[in-house]
Protein backbone atom coordinates (compact mmCIF):
# COMPACT_ATOMS: atom_id res chain seq x y z
CA UNK A 1 0.00 0.00 0.00
CA UNK A 2 2.57 2.53 1.13
CA UNK A 3 6.09 2.26 -0.08
CA UNK A 4 9.03 4.51 0.73
CA UNK A 5 11.96 4.36 -1.66
CA UNK A 6 15.30 5.86 -0.64
CA UNK A 7 13.66 8.60 1.33
CA UNK A 8 15.91 11.31 2.76
CA UNK A 9 14.83 14.17 4.94
CA UNK A 10 16.83 17.02 6.41
CA UNK A 11 15.39 19.67 8.73
CA UNK A 12 16.30 23.25 7.82
CA UNK A 13 17.83 21.93 4.63
CA UNK A 14 20.55 24.09 3.06
CA UNK A 15 21.03 26.17 6.23
CA UNK A 16 23.80 25.98 8.82
CA UNK A 17 21.32 24.41 11.29
CA UNK A 18 20.58 21.50 8.96
CA UNK A 19 20.02 18.25 10.78
CA UNK A 20 19.49 14.97 9.01
CA UNK A 21 16.36 13.18 10.17
CA UNK A 22 16.11 10.34 7.65
CA UNK A 23 18.78 8.66 5.55
CA UNK A 24 17.90 6.39 2.60
CA UNK A 25 14.85 4.87 4.20
CA UNK A 26 13.20 2.05 2.26
CA UNK A 27 10.08 0.61 3.78
CA UNK A 28 6.99 -1.10 2.43
CA UNK A 29 3.67 -1.69 4.10
CA UNK A 30 1.30 -4.21 2.54
CA UNK A 31 -2.41 -4.57 2.98
CA UNK A 32 -3.42 -6.29 6.19
CA UNK A 33 -0.15 -5.74 8.01
CA UNK A 34 0.34 -4.23 11.43
CA UNK A 35 3.69 -2.55 11.81
CA UNK A 36 5.39 -1.36 14.92
CA UNK A 37 8.08 1.29 14.49
CA UNK A 38 10.57 1.50 17.33
CA UNK A 39 13.64 3.57 18.01
CA UNK A 40 14.68 6.02 20.66
CA UNK A 41 14.03 9.76 20.61
CA UNK A 42 15.64 11.42 17.62
CA UNK A 43 15.83 8.22 15.60
CA UNK A 44 13.57 9.75 12.95
CA UNK A 45 10.44 7.73 13.63
CA UNK A 46 8.14 10.71 14.02
CA UNK A 47 9.50 12.32 10.86
CA UNK A 48 8.79 9.03 9.11
CA UNK A 49 5.12 9.12 10.12
CA UNK A 50 4.77 12.67 8.85
CA UNK A 51 6.30 11.73 5.52
CA UNK A 52 4.05 8.70 5.14
CA UNK A 53 0.98 10.83 5.72
CA UNK A 54 2.11 13.52 3.29
CA UNK A 55 2.54 16.28 5.87
CA UNK A 56 6.23 16.48 5.00
CA UNK A 57 7.72 16.14 1.57
CA UNK A 58 10.94 14.14 1.51
CA UNK A 59 14.04 16.01 0.29
CA UNK A 60 14.70 13.14 -2.06
CA UNK A 61 13.24 9.71 -2.72
CA UNK A 62 9.75 8.54 -3.48
CA UNK A 63 6.63 7.89 -1.45
CA UNK A 64 4.30 5.57 -3.31
CA UNK A 65 0.69 4.99 -2.37
CA UNK A 66 -0.79 2.09 -4.31
CA UNK A 67 1.99 2.62 -6.82
CA UNK A 68 1.33 6.34 -7.28
CA UNK A 69 4.18 8.69 -6.41
CA UNK A 70 2.64 11.27 -4.09
CA UNK A 71 5.77 13.39 -3.78
CA UNK A 72 5.10 14.71 -7.28
CA UNK A 73 1.83 16.25 -6.11
CA UNK A 74 1.78 19.88 -5.08
CA UNK A 75 0.07 19.04 -1.82
CA UNK A 76 0.68 15.39 -0.90
CA UNK A 77 -1.42 15.68 2.26
CA UNK A 78 -4.50 16.64 0.23
CA UNK A 79 -3.91 13.71 -2.09
CA UNK A 80 -3.65 11.29 0.84
CA UNK A 81 -6.68 12.69 2.65
CA UNK A 82 -8.95 9.79 3.48
CA UNK A 83 -6.26 7.32 2.52
CA UNK A 84 -3.68 7.75 5.23
CA UNK A 85 -4.67 8.96 8.68
CA UNK A 86 -2.12 10.16 11.21
CA UNK A 87 -2.81 10.31 14.93
CA UNK A 88 -0.21 12.44 16.71
CA UNK A 89 1.27 11.85 20.12
CA UNK A 90 -1.06 12.97 22.93
CA UNK A 91 -3.84 13.53 20.37
CA UNK A 92 -6.24 14.59 23.12
CA UNK A 93 -4.49 17.97 23.07
CA UNK A 94 -5.95 18.78 19.66
CA UNK A 95 -9.64 18.68 20.68
CA UNK A 96 -11.39 22.01 20.34
CA UNK A 97 -15.10 21.70 19.49
CA UNK A 98 -18.00 22.14 21.86
CA UNK A 99 -19.27 18.61 21.56
CA UNK A 100 -17.60 15.29 20.93
CA UNK A 101 -19.58 14.56 17.79
CA UNK A 102 -18.66 17.95 16.28
CA UNK A 103 -15.01 17.37 17.04
CA UNK A 104 -15.05 14.02 15.31
CA UNK A 105 -16.88 15.59 12.34
CA UNK A 106 -14.06 18.10 11.84
CA UNK A 107 -11.96 15.80 9.65
CA UNK A 108 -14.80 14.55 7.41
CA UNK A 109 -16.07 18.15 7.11
CA UNK A 110 -12.66 19.24 5.84
CA UNK A 111 -12.88 16.49 3.24
CA UNK A 112 -15.91 18.28 1.85
CA UNK A 113 -18.47 15.62 2.77
CA UNK A 114 -22.13 16.40 3.32
CA UNK A 115 -23.42 16.98 6.83
CA UNK A 116 -25.29 13.64 6.88
CA UNK A 117 -22.25 11.77 5.65
CA UNK A 118 -20.07 13.49 8.27
CA UNK A 119 -22.43 12.51 11.07
CA UNK A 120 -22.74 8.99 9.78
CA UNK A 121 -18.99 8.56 9.70
CA UNK A 122 -18.52 10.20 13.09
CA UNK A 123 -21.03 7.84 14.69
CA UNK A 124 -19.39 4.87 13.02
CA UNK A 125 -15.99 6.05 14.32
CA UNK A 126 -17.36 6.48 17.83
CA UNK A 127 -18.63 2.92 17.76
CA UNK A 128 -15.26 1.66 16.58
CA UNK A 129 -13.37 3.36 19.39
CA UNK A 130 -15.90 2.13 21.92
CA UNK A 131 -17.81 5.29 22.83
CA UNK A 132 -21.59 4.94 22.96
CA UNK A 133 -24.18 7.49 21.80
CA UNK A 134 -24.53 9.08 25.22
CA UNK A 135 -21.14 10.72 24.60
CA UNK A 136 -22.21 12.54 21.41
CA UNK A 137 -23.23 15.83 22.97
CA UNK A 138 -20.80 15.92 25.86
CA UNK A 139 -17.99 18.43 25.79
CA UNK A 140 -14.67 16.80 24.93
CA UNK A 141 -13.19 18.57 27.94
CA UNK A 142 -15.34 16.99 30.61
CA UNK A 143 -14.41 13.36 30.00
CA UNK A 144 -11.45 11.37 31.31
CA UNK A 145 -8.01 11.40 29.70
CA UNK A 146 -8.40 7.94 28.22
CA UNK A 147 -11.76 8.85 26.72
CA UNK A 148 -10.32 12.05 25.27
CA UNK A 149 -7.72 9.99 23.49
CA UNK A 150 -10.46 7.79 22.03
CA UNK A 151 -12.32 10.85 20.78
CA UNK A 152 -9.16 12.16 19.15
CA UNK A 153 -8.48 8.83 17.47
CA UNK A 154 -12.12 8.69 16.34
CA UNK A 155 -11.53 12.10 14.73
CA UNK A 156 -8.99 10.50 12.40
CA UNK A 157 -10.87 7.20 12.00
CA UNK A 158 -13.93 9.17 10.82
CA UNK A 159 -11.93 10.18 7.75
CA UNK A 160 -11.94 6.42 7.05
CA UNK A 161 -8.28 6.08 6.14
CA UNK A 162 -7.04 2.90 4.53
CA UNK A 163 -3.87 3.11 6.55
CA UNK A 164 -3.93 4.35 10.13
CA UNK A 165 -0.68 5.63 11.58
CA UNK A 166 -0.36 6.38 15.29
CA UNK A 167 2.56 8.12 16.98
CA UNK A 168 3.01 6.61 20.45
CA UNK A 169 -0.65 5.86 21.06
CA UNK A 170 0.01 4.38 24.51
CA UNK A 171 2.06 7.26 25.98
CA UNK A 172 0.91 7.98 29.51
CA UNK A 173 -1.60 5.12 29.66
CA UNK A 174 -1.58 2.52 32.42
CA UNK A 175 -1.49 -1.22 31.59
CA UNK A 176 -5.27 -1.54 31.35
CA UNK A 177 -5.55 1.58 29.24
CA UNK A 178 -2.83 0.23 26.96
CA UNK A 179 -4.53 -3.16 26.54
CA UNK A 180 -7.85 -1.48 25.82
CA UNK A 181 -6.24 0.75 23.24
CA UNK A 182 -4.69 -2.16 21.39
CA UNK A 183 -7.97 -4.06 21.54
CA UNK A 184 -9.61 -1.03 19.99
CA UNK A 185 -6.99 -0.84 17.26
CA UNK A 186 -7.57 -4.53 16.44
CA UNK A 187 -11.24 -3.79 16.13
CA UNK A 188 -10.59 -0.81 13.83
CA UNK A 189 -8.27 -2.87 11.70
CA UNK A 190 -10.78 -5.65 11.34
CA UNK A 191 -13.61 -3.33 10.30
CA UNK A 192 -12.22 -0.27 8.60
CA UNK A 193 -8.50 0.25 8.11
CA UNK A 194 -6.50 -2.15 6.00
CA UNK A 195 -3.18 -1.57 7.71
CA UNK A 196 -2.05 -0.07 10.96
CA UNK A 197 1.34 1.41 11.72
CA UNK A 198 2.20 2.53 15.22
CA UNK A 199 5.26 4.13 16.74
CA UNK A 200 6.26 2.96 20.18
CA UNK A 201 9.08 3.07 22.67
CA UNK A 202 8.02 -0.18 24.11
CA UNK A 203 9.17 -3.44 22.60
CA UNK A 204 6.57 -5.16 24.75
CA UNK A 205 3.80 -3.35 22.89
CA UNK A 206 5.35 -4.31 19.58
CA UNK A 207 5.80 -7.92 20.66
CA UNK A 208 2.16 -8.14 21.70
CA UNK A 209 0.41 -6.30 18.95
CA UNK A 210 2.47 -5.94 15.77
CA UNK A 211 3.32 -8.63 13.27
CA UNK A 212 6.04 -6.64 11.57
CA UNK A 213 8.58 -4.32 13.06
CA UNK A 214 10.80 -1.53 11.77
CA UNK A 215 13.70 -0.50 13.99
CA UNK A 216 15.05 2.99 13.41
CA UNK A 217 18.41 4.22 14.61
CA UNK A 218 19.94 7.62 13.86
CA UNK A 219 17.62 8.23 10.92
CA UNK A 220 18.39 4.91 9.29
CA UNK A 221 16.59 1.60 9.16
CA UNK A 222 18.47 -0.71 11.49
CA UNK A 223 16.27 -3.79 11.17
CA UNK A 224 12.94 -4.63 9.61
CA UNK A 225 10.83 -7.71 9.20
CA UNK A 226 8.71 -10.16 11.16
CA UNK A 227 8.62 -9.48 14.88
CA UNK A 228 10.14 -12.80 15.92
CA UNK A 229 12.99 -12.53 13.41
CA UNK A 230 13.90 -9.05 14.57
CA UNK A 231 13.67 -9.87 18.27
CA UNK A 232 16.07 -12.76 17.77
CA UNK A 233 18.77 -10.13 17.26
CA UNK A 234 18.36 -8.79 20.77
CA UNK A 235 22.02 -7.81 21.12
CA UNK A 236 21.75 -5.50 18.11
CA UNK A 237 18.64 -3.91 19.57
CA UNK A 238 20.31 -3.32 22.89
CA UNK A 239 23.25 -1.68 21.12
CA UNK A 240 20.77 0.74 19.54
CA UNK A 241 19.74 1.71 23.07
CA UNK A 242 16.39 -0.09 23.01
CA UNK A 243 14.86 -1.98 25.86
CA UNK A 244 14.13 -5.51 24.73
CA UNK A 245 11.35 -7.33 26.62
CA UNK A 246 12.43 -8.95 29.86
CA UNK A 247 11.63 -12.48 28.63
CA UNK A 248 13.84 -11.94 25.61
CA UNK A 249 16.65 -10.94 27.95
CA UNK A 250 15.97 -13.92 30.19
CA UNK A 251 16.25 -16.34 27.29
CA UNK A 252 19.35 -14.55 26.00
CA UNK A 253 20.97 -14.95 29.42
CA UNK A 254 20.11 -18.62 29.57
CA UNK A 255 21.59 -19.06 26.10
CA UNK A 256 24.78 -17.37 27.32
CA UNK A 257 24.92 -19.93 30.09
CA UNK A 258 25.01 -22.65 27.47
CA UNK A 259 21.37 -23.70 27.28
CA UNK A 260 19.78 -24.14 23.89
CA UNK A 261 16.43 -22.63 23.00
CA UNK A 262 15.06 -22.87 19.50
CA UNK A 263 12.69 -20.51 17.74
CA UNK A 264 11.48 -17.09 18.74
CA UNK A 265 10.36 -16.59 22.32
CA UNK A 266 8.43 -13.36 22.66
CA UNK A 267 5.87 -13.85 25.35
CA UNK A 268 5.81 -14.98 28.97
CA UNK A 269 3.78 -18.06 28.02
CA UNK A 270 6.28 -19.08 25.30
CA UNK A 271 9.17 -18.69 27.74
CA UNK A 272 7.50 -20.67 30.54
CA UNK A 273 6.59 -23.41 28.09
CA UNK A 274 10.11 -23.61 26.64
CA UNK A 275 11.77 -23.70 30.07
CA UNK A 276 9.27 -26.24 31.35
CA UNK A 277 9.80 -28.61 28.44
CA UNK A 278 13.58 -28.38 28.95
CA UNK A 279 13.22 -29.16 32.64
CA UNK A 280 10.90 -32.08 32.04
CA UNK A 281 11.79 -33.16 28.54
Amino acid at each position, binding site marked *: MIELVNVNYTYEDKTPDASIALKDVCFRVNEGETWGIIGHTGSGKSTLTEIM*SGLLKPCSGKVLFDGLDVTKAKNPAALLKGKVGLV*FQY*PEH*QLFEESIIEDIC*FGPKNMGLSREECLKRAREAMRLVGLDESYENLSP*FEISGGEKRRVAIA*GIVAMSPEVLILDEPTAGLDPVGRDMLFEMLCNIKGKLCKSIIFVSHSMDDVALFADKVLVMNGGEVLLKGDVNEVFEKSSMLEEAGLDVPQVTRLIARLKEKGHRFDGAILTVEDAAEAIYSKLKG
Partner: protein
Amino acid sequence: MLRDITIGQYYNTKSSLHSLDPRCKLIGLVVMMALIFVAQSVIEYAFVTLLTIALAILSRVPMAYILKGMKPVWLIVAFTAVINIFMGGGETVVFTWWAFTVTKEALYLALSMMLRVVLLVTVSTLLTLTTSPTVLTSGLEKLLKPLEKVKFPSHEVAMMMSIALRFIPTLGEEAEKIMKAQAARGNDIESGGFMKKISGMIPLFVPLFISAFRRADELAMAMECRCYAGGCNRTAFRKLEYKKSDAVAFVLMGTAVLLVVIYRTVGFLI
Protein backbone atom coordinates in the same frame (compact mmCIF):
# COMPACT_ATOMS: atom_id res chain seq x y z
CA MET B 1 7.77 30.35 10.85
CA LEU B 2 7.65 31.16 14.54
CA ARG B 3 11.41 30.95 14.69
CA ASP B 4 11.91 33.90 12.34
CA ILE B 5 11.19 36.53 14.96
CA THR B 6 14.55 38.06 15.85
CA ILE B 7 13.32 41.06 17.82
CA GLY B 8 14.12 40.45 21.44
CA GLN B 9 16.78 37.90 20.68
CA TYR B 10 20.09 37.75 22.44
CA TYR B 11 23.25 37.67 20.32
CA ASN B 12 26.33 37.19 22.42
CA THR B 13 29.57 38.63 21.03
CA LYS B 14 31.06 39.33 24.47
CA SER B 15 31.58 42.97 23.49
CA SER B 16 31.99 45.78 25.98
CA LEU B 17 28.36 46.65 25.44
CA HIS B 18 27.38 43.12 26.45
CA SER B 19 29.30 43.30 29.70
CA LEU B 20 27.62 46.49 30.92
CA ASP B 21 25.20 46.30 33.82
CA PRO B 22 21.61 45.87 32.60
CA ARG B 23 20.45 48.82 34.68
CA CYS B 24 23.06 50.99 32.99
CA LYS B 25 21.85 49.85 29.59
CA LEU B 26 18.21 50.38 30.46
CA ILE B 27 18.94 53.93 31.59
CA GLY B 28 21.02 54.35 28.45
CA LEU B 29 18.05 53.28 26.37
CA VAL B 30 15.83 55.85 28.04
CA VAL B 31 18.46 58.57 27.46
CA MET B 32 18.86 57.61 23.81
CA MET B 33 15.11 57.60 23.31
CA ALA B 34 14.84 61.05 24.87
CA LEU B 35 17.61 62.37 22.63
CA ILE B 36 15.93 60.91 19.56
CA PHE B 37 12.59 62.43 20.51
CA VAL B 38 13.90 65.94 21.19
CA ALA B 39 16.01 66.05 18.02
CA GLN B 40 14.80 68.71 15.58
CA SER B 41 17.62 70.16 13.52
CA VAL B 42 19.69 68.33 10.95
CA ILE B 43 22.72 68.52 13.23
CA GLU B 44 20.85 66.95 16.13
CA TYR B 45 19.56 64.17 13.92
CA ALA B 46 23.06 63.58 12.60
CA PHE B 47 24.33 63.44 16.19
CA VAL B 48 21.85 60.79 17.39
CA THR B 49 22.28 58.80 14.18
CA LEU B 50 26.03 58.75 14.68
CA LEU B 51 25.56 57.73 18.32
CA THR B 52 23.32 54.85 17.30
CA ILE B 53 25.75 53.69 14.63
CA ALA B 54 28.58 53.91 17.16
CA LEU B 55 26.61 51.76 19.58
CA ALA B 56 25.84 49.22 16.87
CA ILE B 57 29.53 49.00 15.98
CA LEU B 58 30.44 48.72 19.65
CA SER B 59 28.05 45.79 20.08
CA ARG B 60 29.95 43.85 17.40
CA VAL B 61 26.68 42.28 16.29
CA PRO B 62 26.75 41.94 12.48
CA MET B 63 24.89 44.86 10.90
CA ALA B 64 22.97 42.47 8.63
CA TYR B 65 21.65 40.66 11.70
CA ILE B 66 20.41 43.88 13.28
CA LEU B 67 18.68 44.88 10.04
CA LYS B 68 17.12 41.44 9.66
CA GLY B 69 15.54 41.80 13.05
CA MET B 70 13.94 45.01 11.91
CA LYS B 71 12.11 43.45 8.99
CA PRO B 72 8.65 43.69 10.54
CA VAL B 73 9.24 47.37 11.28
CA TRP B 74 9.85 48.49 7.70
CA LEU B 75 6.15 48.36 6.91
CA ILE B 76 5.36 50.73 9.79
CA VAL B 77 8.20 52.99 8.68
CA ALA B 78 6.91 53.13 5.11
CA PHE B 79 3.38 53.74 6.33
CA THR B 80 4.37 56.68 8.58
CA ALA B 81 6.41 58.12 5.76
CA VAL B 82 3.56 58.01 3.25
CA ILE B 83 1.08 59.49 5.70
CA ASN B 84 3.47 62.30 6.56
CA ILE B 85 4.40 63.09 3.00
CA PHE B 86 0.83 63.50 1.83
CA MET B 87 -0.83 64.84 4.94
CA GLY B 88 2.03 66.94 6.18
CA GLY B 89 0.76 70.38 5.22
CA GLY B 90 3.39 73.13 4.85
CA GLU B 91 3.85 75.77 2.15
CA THR B 92 6.87 75.16 -0.06
CA VAL B 93 5.36 72.96 -2.73
CA VAL B 94 7.72 70.50 -4.34
CA PHE B 95 5.22 68.87 -6.68
CA THR B 96 1.54 68.04 -6.92
CA TRP B 97 0.05 64.83 -8.15
CA TRP B 98 -3.66 64.23 -8.56
CA ALA B 99 -5.27 65.38 -5.29
CA PHE B 100 -2.01 65.32 -3.34
CA THR B 101 0.44 68.07 -2.75
CA VAL B 102 3.88 67.35 -1.49
CA THR B 103 5.66 70.14 0.34
CA LYS B 104 9.24 70.57 1.47
CA GLU B 105 8.15 70.73 5.10
CA ALA B 106 6.17 67.52 4.77
CA LEU B 107 9.11 65.77 3.15
CA TYR B 108 11.41 66.86 5.95
CA LEU B 109 8.86 65.74 8.51
CA ALA B 110 8.41 62.38 6.83
CA LEU B 111 12.12 61.79 6.61
CA SER B 112 12.69 62.74 10.22
CA MET B 113 9.80 60.55 11.38
CA MET B 114 11.23 57.64 9.43
CA LEU B 115 14.63 58.21 10.91
CA ARG B 116 13.16 58.42 14.39
CA VAL B 117 11.32 55.12 14.11
CA VAL B 118 14.36 53.40 12.65
CA LEU B 119 16.65 54.77 15.35
CA LEU B 120 14.25 53.95 18.18
CA VAL B 121 13.86 50.40 16.98
CA THR B 122 17.60 50.03 16.47
CA VAL B 123 18.53 51.15 19.97
CA SER B 124 15.88 48.94 21.56
CA THR B 125 16.99 46.00 19.44
CA LEU B 126 20.57 46.70 20.51
CA LEU B 127 19.52 46.46 24.13
CA THR B 128 17.94 43.03 23.68
CA LEU B 129 20.72 41.83 21.41
CA THR B 130 23.36 42.66 23.98
CA THR B 131 21.48 41.69 27.15
CA SER B 132 20.19 38.21 27.91
CA PRO B 133 16.49 38.24 28.82
CA THR B 134 17.11 36.97 32.34
CA VAL B 135 19.68 39.64 33.09
CA LEU B 136 17.40 42.25 31.59
CA THR B 137 14.54 41.12 33.81
CA SER B 138 16.58 41.29 36.99
CA GLY B 139 17.90 44.70 35.91
CA LEU B 140 14.38 45.92 35.39
CA GLU B 141 13.27 44.55 38.74
CA LYS B 142 16.09 46.40 40.49
CA LEU B 143 15.40 49.65 38.64
CA LEU B 144 11.70 49.52 39.42
CA LYS B 145 12.28 48.61 43.07
CA PRO B 146 11.95 52.20 44.35
CA LEU B 147 8.48 52.31 42.80
CA GLU B 148 7.32 49.69 45.31
CA LYS B 149 6.84 52.59 47.71
CA VAL B 150 3.97 53.74 45.55
CA LYS B 151 2.60 50.16 45.46
CA PHE B 152 4.02 49.33 42.04
CA PRO B 153 4.42 45.52 41.91
CA SER B 154 7.97 45.52 40.55
CA HIS B 155 8.75 41.95 41.61
CA GLU B 156 5.54 40.61 40.11
CA VAL B 157 6.14 42.42 36.83
CA ALA B 158 9.65 41.00 36.61
CA MET B 159 8.40 37.50 37.49
CA MET B 160 5.72 37.72 34.82
CA MET B 161 8.26 38.79 32.24
CA SER B 162 10.58 35.98 33.22
CA ILE B 163 7.85 33.33 33.03
CA ALA B 164 6.70 34.67 29.68
CA LEU B 165 10.26 34.42 28.38
CA ARG B 166 10.50 30.90 29.72
CA PHE B 167 7.26 29.72 28.11
CA ILE B 168 7.34 31.46 24.72
CA PRO B 169 9.52 28.74 23.13
CA THR B 170 7.52 25.96 24.78
CA LEU B 171 4.22 27.34 23.57
CA GLY B 172 5.75 28.00 20.15
CA GLU B 173 6.68 24.35 19.84
CA GLU B 174 3.26 23.36 21.03
CA ALA B 175 1.60 25.63 18.47
CA GLU B 176 3.58 23.96 15.72
CA LYS B 177 2.55 20.52 16.94
CA ILE B 178 -1.12 21.47 17.07
CA MET B 179 -0.88 23.01 13.61
CA LYS B 180 0.46 19.74 12.24
CA ALA B 181 -2.11 17.67 14.11
CA GLN B 182 -4.97 19.74 12.72
CA ALA B 183 -3.43 19.68 9.25
CA ALA B 184 -3.59 15.89 9.53
CA ARG B 185 -7.33 16.33 10.03
CA GLY B 186 -7.50 18.40 6.86
CA ASN B 187 -7.45 21.84 8.45
CA ASP B 188 -6.21 24.32 5.87
CA ILE B 189 -5.05 27.78 6.87
CA GLU B 190 -2.96 28.45 3.79
CA SER B 191 -5.67 28.89 1.18
CA GLY B 192 -9.12 30.44 1.07
CA GLY B 193 -10.45 33.87 1.87
CA PHE B 194 -10.02 35.96 4.96
CA MET B 195 -13.02 34.53 6.79
CA LYS B 196 -11.99 30.98 5.98
CA LYS B 197 -8.51 31.66 7.30
CA ILE B 198 -9.93 33.08 10.51
CA SER B 199 -12.17 30.08 11.07
CA GLY B 200 -9.18 27.86 10.34
CA MET B 201 -7.45 29.45 13.31
CA ILE B 202 -10.06 28.29 15.84
CA PRO B 203 -8.83 24.67 15.86
CA LEU B 204 -5.36 26.02 16.63
CA PHE B 205 -6.17 28.61 19.25
CA VAL B 206 -8.66 26.67 21.36
CA PRO B 207 -6.25 23.79 22.12
CA LEU B 208 -3.37 26.22 22.57
CA PHE B 209 -5.30 28.27 25.14
CA ILE B 210 -6.45 25.19 26.97
CA SER B 211 -2.90 23.93 27.14
CA ALA B 212 -1.60 27.32 28.28
CA PHE B 213 -4.11 27.39 31.11
CA ARG B 214 -3.26 23.85 32.14
CA ARG B 215 0.42 24.77 32.16
CA ALA B 216 -0.29 27.88 34.21
CA ASP B 217 -2.19 25.78 36.75
CA GLU B 218 0.56 23.21 37.09
CA LEU B 219 3.28 25.84 37.19
CA ALA B 220 1.50 27.70 39.97
CA MET B 221 1.31 24.49 41.99
CA ALA B 222 4.99 23.70 41.36
CA MET B 223 5.94 27.23 42.43
CA GLU B 224 3.93 26.93 45.61
CA CYS B 225 5.60 23.63 46.38
CA ARG B 226 8.90 25.43 46.20
CA CYS B 227 7.74 27.91 48.81
CA TYR B 228 7.04 30.81 46.47
CA ALA B 229 5.13 33.56 48.23
CA GLY B 230 5.67 36.69 46.17
CA GLY B 231 8.50 39.16 46.45
CA CYS B 232 8.87 39.57 50.19
CA ASN B 233 11.98 38.24 51.98
CA ARG B 234 13.40 36.93 48.75
CA THR B 235 17.09 36.81 47.99
CA ALA B 236 18.48 36.90 44.47
CA PHE B 237 20.64 34.33 42.75
CA ARG B 238 22.01 37.00 40.45
CA LYS B 239 23.86 39.89 42.00
CA LEU B 240 24.06 43.09 40.01
CA GLU B 241 27.10 45.24 40.59
CA TYR B 242 28.13 48.39 38.82
CA LYS B 243 31.63 48.18 37.41
CA LYS B 244 34.08 50.79 36.16
CA SER B 245 32.84 50.36 32.62
CA ASP B 246 29.34 51.29 33.80
CA ALA B 247 30.72 54.49 35.31
CA VAL B 248 32.36 55.30 31.99
CA ALA B 249 29.08 54.62 30.21
CA PHE B 250 27.18 56.92 32.57
CA VAL B 251 29.75 59.69 32.00
CA LEU B 252 29.41 59.30 28.23
CA MET B 253 25.62 59.43 28.51
CA GLY B 254 25.87 62.59 30.58
CA THR B 255 28.22 64.14 28.06
CA ALA B 256 25.87 63.39 25.18
CA VAL B 257 22.93 64.93 27.01
CA LEU B 258 25.06 67.92 27.95
CA LEU B 259 26.18 68.42 24.36
CA VAL B 260 22.58 68.56 23.16
CA VAL B 261 21.60 70.92 25.97
CA ILE B 262 24.54 73.21 25.19
CA TYR B 263 23.75 73.13 21.49
CA ARG B 264 20.15 74.02 22.22
CA THR B 265 21.08 76.85 24.58
CA VAL B 266 23.70 78.27 22.24
CA GLY B 267 21.27 77.97 19.33
CA PHE B 268 18.71 79.73 21.44
CA LEU B 269 21.11 82.50 22.36
CA ILE B 270 22.10 83.12 18.79
